[in-house]
């Protein structure tokens, strides 16, 4: 049955369906509604869990690390500065191979301060060893959250479910929440192979010398091969229960035979799909929705790009001095594959800048004018009083 739910409420109820024993979080916009909703579910006795309202995101990540290590399914959520503050712990959780699920309510990173949506926060921890799944809409956010627990517990890799702040977290959409029985059938009770127990004293988090360090890092990398399979299996198995999928590693839609493609991550893909459906693109376009950013599905991207002459890659984050982060990785995946398309990288939607349906046609038109490999789209330097300053980009 479908209910009209705010994204955060829906995510919280999806988390509750997974029966976590420990939830730890620190408030940050736009993550707060998720944790508040979980707190209410616990207060109403609808979720039996320990809610630990910590004194920082650093401790939020540390509490779920400890709780999962002690054998309890654990969940946290954060955004922006919170993700950066917990970044040291994020690396540690992944290196210790502790299964944890985190919702990142994607938000820009200061400075300048912005509470609004882009992907700078999760991108800044892309190398932390977490699986990263990006959600195009709130139904995907619900389904991906549930799948994330199984993926994490089977791979012993933590999973970050990336949900665009405000655009998704604060938006009401009709949501089909699965039944408790469906989730229970999909997600077995939490079991962690190395959980802390005085009956079997294990030592974890030891000093590793140069003799073994490379091998340990290699194991962590190797786990992401398994993660690709588990992401696909989770989407397939959960899809069979609820009758829909969340896009596996990479969703390919639109005009399959088109020679021009647009690739997006997160909620911009929903706008792109709408624009395509309502004819705003003005020409046939293949639509690519990248759901798994870690593991990075290079092979799926190569297959999805076959026959394309041009691929527009949209980035909602920026590596200053370099360009769009997603596009770099797409280029790297396609490099050397015979007929790789030209990659044109547009950074859009920084700090909550709206990405309207009409913008895609402008991009397609820009393609005809031999655009640079990378540019920031929808840029108007004249808005800034210092726009004559030579350090600011000009048109």
């Amino acid at each position, binding site marked *: 049955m479908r209910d009209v739910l705010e994204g955060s409420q829906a995510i919280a109820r999806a988390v509750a369906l997974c029966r976590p024993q420990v939830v730890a979080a620190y408030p940050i916009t736009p993550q707060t509604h998720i944790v508040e909703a979980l707190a209410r579910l616990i207060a109403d006795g609808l979720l039996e869990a320990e809610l630990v309202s910590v004194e920082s995101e650093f401790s939020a990540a540390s509490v779920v690390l400890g709780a999962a290590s002690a054998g309890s399914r654990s969940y946290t959520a954060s955004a922006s500065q919170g993700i950066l503050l917990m970044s040291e712990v994020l690396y540690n959780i992944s290196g210790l191979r502790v299964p944890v699920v985190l919702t990142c309510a994607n938000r820009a990173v200061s400075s300048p301060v912005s509470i609004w949506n882009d992907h700078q926060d999760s991108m800044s921890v892309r190398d932390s060893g977490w699986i990263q799944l990006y959600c195009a809409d709130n139904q995907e956010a619900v389904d991906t959250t549930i799948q994330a627990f199984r993926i994490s517990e089977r791979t012993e890799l933590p999973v970050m479910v990336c949900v665009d702040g405000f655009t998704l977290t604060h938006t009401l959409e009709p949501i089909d929440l699965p039944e408790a029985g469906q989730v229970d059938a999909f997600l077995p009770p939490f079991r962690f192979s190395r959980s802390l127990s005085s009956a079997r004293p*294990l030592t974890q988090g030891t000093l590793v010398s140069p003799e073994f360090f490379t091998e340990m890092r290699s194991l962590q990398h190797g786990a992401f091969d398994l993660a690709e399979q588990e992401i696909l299996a989770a989407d397939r198995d959960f899809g069979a229960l609820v009758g829909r999928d969340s896009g596996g590693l990479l969703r390919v839609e639109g005009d399959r035979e088109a020679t021009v493609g647009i690739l997006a991550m997160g909620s911009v893909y929903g706008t792109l799909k709408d624009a395509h459906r309502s004819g705003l693109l003005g020409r046939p376009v293949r639509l690519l929705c990248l759901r798994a950013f870690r593991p990075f599905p290079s092979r799926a991207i190569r297959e999805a790009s076959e026959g394309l002459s041009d691929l527009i890659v949209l980035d909602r984050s920026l590596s200053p001095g370099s360009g769009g982060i997603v596009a770099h990785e797409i280029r790297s995946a396609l490099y050397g594959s015979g007929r790789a398309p030209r990659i044109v990288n547009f950074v859009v939607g920084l700090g909550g800048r709206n990405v309207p349906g009409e913008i895609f046609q402008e991009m397609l038109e820009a393609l005809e004018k031999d655009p640079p490999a990378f540019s920031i789209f929808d840029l108007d330097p004249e808005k800034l009083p210092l726009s004559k300053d030579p350090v600011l980009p000009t048109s």
Partner: protein
Amino acid sequence: MSSQPSVDTTALRKLQPRFSGIESGHGACQGCGQALAARLVLEAAGPDVIVANATGCLEIFTTPWPQSAWNVPWIHSLFENVAAVAAGIEVALRAQGRTTRVLAFAGDGGTFDIGFQALSGMLERNHDVLFVCFDNEAYMNTGIQRSGSTPHGAWTNTSPAGRVRQGKRHFKKDLLTIISAHGIPYAATASVAYPSDLRAKVRRALDVSGPSFLLLHSPCPLGWGHDSAQTISVDRLAVETGLFPILEMERGKVVSSMKIRNPRPVREYALPQFRFRHLLMDTPEAREELEHLQALADANIERYDLLSEAPGPRDSGGADTVRRGGSRWG
């Protein structure tokens, strides 16, 4: 003829089962106060514990992979988050209905400085965790740098003594008072020079429900620059000078102190230690700083009313040595 005890107490002591939470063979320096203190804590705590350990010497010298000295479940995450990791373990155990006790181990850097926020949060949230700070009064693992716990006047590599500076300019942070101000049920100090007192405090801390805190003075022969054979005698002087008062606090109030029956001047404590050597020079600056240190010790004695002729019930005066034998337990 002197009266002989009717029983051989030494033999009895050797028969007493003792839980060895840390095996021998680890890589601590000779005379390491922290290794000794950690062993004493686990002797008293027993095997049904989970230890979360902050980054530091203890973590490094006990766990060079693939070896481990630990006979208890043990996890090391990071430097500054041990209180939060322990809190997470504690809530998980509570959710699962398990009764295993949770210990958090950290050095003074991980407690006074970088781990302080997480510790304060853990105390405020009333987690049932015993936090043990092994206080050797500087960052020894990184090569002797000053911390918030380094005593006034002490040399470290970042508070060196030179022509215009006489070691650390600031005071040792009064952490016990700060911790106790959280209103927690039990907070205490102890020293490796008084092992029976230390063990009794571990048992007391584990008896209370809610957060408890132990500040264990643990000499570092390398960082303090004393003979490794003198760890115990040096630390006894830390107590007998009044520089490190042995206290118990409950819900913010001092409830007991170990009395000093044999008060010593701080000069005597400074003498065997390299870190105070510059205070013993015959210069006005050195004399002034040594007087400051003496004044700090005197202030502790006055504040906690530490002088007494009465015997301290847990001041064994060295009779309870740490070298006594004992069969392995478990």
